[in-house]
């Protein structure tokens, strides 16, 4: 399917484990967007507004996560969420 303006995707290599504190920040950031966002890791996906689901992905430092969004602000959402994931420590 060709990409369109209502969906966006990016991959991020995590600089640190996706542990509780960054997962909390992620949930708060994701809630600001109206697009449907998902975080995929190792064949599993989670809604980033759910801190427990995100922690349950077990995404560790050095692994890749994919951020996808569908909706009016998809591009902006993927940019912001990717930036956040790329800067966790």
């Amino acid at each position: 399917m060709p990409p369109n303006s209502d969906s966006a995707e990016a991959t991020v290599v995590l600089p640190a484990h996706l542990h509780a504190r960054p997962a909390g920040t992620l949930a708060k950031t994701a809630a600001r967007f109206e697009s449907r966002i998902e975080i995929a890791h190792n064949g599993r996906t989670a809604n980033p507004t759910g801190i427990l689901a995100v922690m349950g992905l077990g995404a560790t430092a050095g692994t890749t996560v994919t951020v996808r969004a569908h909706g009016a602000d998809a591009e902006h959402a993927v940019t912001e969420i990717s930036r956040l994931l790329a800067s966790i420590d």
Partner: protein
Amino acid sequence: MPSSVGIVLVSHSPELASGLCVLLDQLGAAPGSVIAAAGTADGRIGTSYDAIVVAIEKADQGRGAIVLPDLGSSVLTARTVLDDHPRPGVRLVDAPFVEGAVAAAVIATTGADLDTVIAAAQEARHATKL
């Protein structure tokens, strides 16, 4: 800034509840939105009816509050308090104590309404860790 939905942690143990409060604070819970009602009036393991009444008063800042009991008499005492002092925006929620509080506190900081916060706490039961 508008207030967020409050969370009352009802526990047998003051240390357990205060430790969870610190964790929720680290995760960015809104200041003053999480209130512990834990231990007996003289600081022993147990629950206090009066402490729960006071905690609910503090936690409900106009957006409502959820009451999360750990187990046993925390549930029974919290239920009695809410039966005696029903408040439309305050609900006793059946959820895992730690995970439910974490999920609820994080979603509450986004300005979510009471039903959304309740759902987040309840869904914590189904979140897998591994």
